[in-house]
């Protein structure tokens, strides 16, 4: 019996079949699984509305705002990846700017020193960030809370020092200049408008992928790990492995974003990849709401716009920025859009229930 079964299941591949399957596998990442009952929910009406709005936005925006939307899209990619790690799996990372930087520097070095085409560098950036995340994630992801935050922050600082000191490779403090525009098969993305469609196209593909992921077995495992690691382990989830996998995945997202960042700005220097960027990205995820894929994208647009507006106030910008961060955290700790209706009702009835609010929490 067993022998026959083995014989029957043996599949012979031609060489080109591997090519087809690789392509099919890539497509399957962003297509909804037809065998699952949620396929009607996968794309809702509001998704078409968002898509239409995205396509038409450049018509009404000024050049400056289109450029800001390009940046926002890049940060949204990082925030989307971090949302999987932070919002879904409930871990903390203050080191994602380092993965962003690794992506940017991989692209910068490969395209300027070795003449690799940008599309190849794009893939290599994700791979480099993922490998770094795997190496660093294996030991440190057993930590929790403050200590995980500190360990990832430490990784970010080590990355910055390495970039500043290995001048022969990364150009030190001044960085690398003259990174070529992103190009696919001879088509060069050299205007803000083309870059806008490039970045948001990549983002849409990644959103579809993330949507698939959070509804898969892995996505359920992430939620279980966030709820309780002990309970997750007791139902047979390999907690350590799940955490490393989602860390690697979110780092790969950051690497892709970093690669796009390097191609869009055509420079890479260590100033942009410090703790400030990590804080900004974590803020995007918090503002967007934990366990939410669209929230971080909206938050990315808002915070990119905010930092640009504040930039006009010169030396007052950072204190105001810090105060806004603290106020957002105090008044919207669960994200701005989370349970908006209930919270509005709560706010309206706030003063009426002042006495009852003073109960003891144990």
């Amino acid at each position, binding site marked *: 019996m067993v022998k026959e079964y083995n014989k029957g299941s043996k599949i012979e591949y031609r060489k080109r079949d591997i090519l087809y399957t690789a392509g099919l596998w890539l497509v399957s990442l962003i297509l909804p699984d037809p065998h699952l009952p949620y396929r009607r929910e996968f794309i809702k009406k509001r998704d078409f509305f968002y898509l239409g709005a995205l396509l038409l936005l450049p018509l009404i925006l000024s050049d400056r705002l289109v450029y800001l939307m390009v940046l926002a899209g890049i940060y949204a990619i990082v925030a989307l990846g971090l949302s999987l790690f932070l919002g879904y799996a409930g871990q903390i990372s203050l080191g994602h700017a380092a993965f962003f930087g690794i992506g940017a520097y991989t692209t910068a070095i490969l395209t300027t020193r070795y003449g690799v085409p940008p599309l190849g560098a794009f893939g290599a950036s994700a791979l480099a960030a993922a490998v770094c995340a795997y190496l660093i994630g294996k030991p440190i992801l057993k930590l929790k809370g403050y200590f995980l935050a*500190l360990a990832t922050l430490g990784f970010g600082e080590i990355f910055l020092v390495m970039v500043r000191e290995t001048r022969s490779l990364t150009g030190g403090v001044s960085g690398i200049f003259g990174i070529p525009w992103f190009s696919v098969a001879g088509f060069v993305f050299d205007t803000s408008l083309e870059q806008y469609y490039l970045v948001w196209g990549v983002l849409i593909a990644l959103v579809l992928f993330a949507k698939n992921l959070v509804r898969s077995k892995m996505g359920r495992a992430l939620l279980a790990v966030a709820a309780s690691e002990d309970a997750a382990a007791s139902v047979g989830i390999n907690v350590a492995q799940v955490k490393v996998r989602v860390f690697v995945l979110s780092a790969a997202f950051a690497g892709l974003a970093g690669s796009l960042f390097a191609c869009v700005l055509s420079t890479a220097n260590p100033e942009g990849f410090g703790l400030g960027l990590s*804080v900004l990205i974590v803020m995007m995820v918090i503002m967007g709401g934990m366990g939410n894929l669209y929230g971080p994208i909206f938050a990315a647009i808002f915070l990119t716009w905010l930092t640009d507006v504040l930039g006009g106030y010169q030396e007052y910008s950072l204190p105001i920025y810090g*105060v806004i961060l603290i106020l957002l*955290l105090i008044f919207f700790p669960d994200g701005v859009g989370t349970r908006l209706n209930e919270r509005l009702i709560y706010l309206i009835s706030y003063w009426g229930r002042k006495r009852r609010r003073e109960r003891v929490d144990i």
Partner: protein
Amino acid sequence: MTPWVHIPQLLAAGITMGAIYALVALGFVIIVRASQIINFAQGEFVMLGGVVTFFFIKGAGLPYPLAALAAVLVVICIGLLLHLLVIYPLRKASVLILIMATVGASIVLSNTSALLFGTLPKALPPFSGDLPLEIGDIRIAPQGLWVFGATFFLFFVLYLLSHRTLLGKAMEASSTDPLGADLTGIARNFMVFLAFGVSAGVGAIAGVLVTPLFYTSYNAGTLLGFKGFIAAVVGGWGKNSGAILGGFVLGIVESTSIAFIPAGYKDAVAFVVLLLILYFRPKGILGSPYIDSRRW
């Protein structure tokens, strides 16, 4: 010339640096012993201690000791305000929100200081002259001895506070067993409030002592804060003695590393030490009452 020639001098420098890290680490430990919160703005208290003293001497014309005292008081007020405005509204928030809020507070404090006092690095005169003491081949700045003495003095004071006064015991109780503290009638939030004041005071004293040794600029606090935190983790999280030991270990490791690797990598050494200690012994050298090593 082998790098070993410089080791004694680097050891002396490392002990001075270690005393500074120990002072900063003590600030973290005070808050953790009262509330399990880690204040990422701790380094800014150190920076403000130095910068505000400088302002009182140069701007207001106060004599040195009086200016230092006034600066410490001002920073204590800032610490109390930080608790009232940021930590108290977020007392039930998750760890992530608290981290982000204290990081936000640190951004506000450092950049407001840049706004008020300028971005130029500030230097104060040493307490007792510039002339270095020479012991054999080793040169020690007298200010280093001041820092060293102050570290152990503050350690002693904090020991008295937590072991000999009811207030200190109440502070510790509110961290180790919040429910029990509530039931015995300890005003837990007030204890955290006081702990922030004490911690800011220790940070400011560290700032006053450090500024004669190094130039203190508006952005010096963040890195110093992280290194103090690393010192507290290395020595044993949540222990005063651990903070002191961790500070000296970190200072000496960082200082002697200059003999073997390029000086530019010095800032990375502390973080490498952090990753190593978190991986191999998360509860630190002396062990920690708050971390159960089996679960980490």
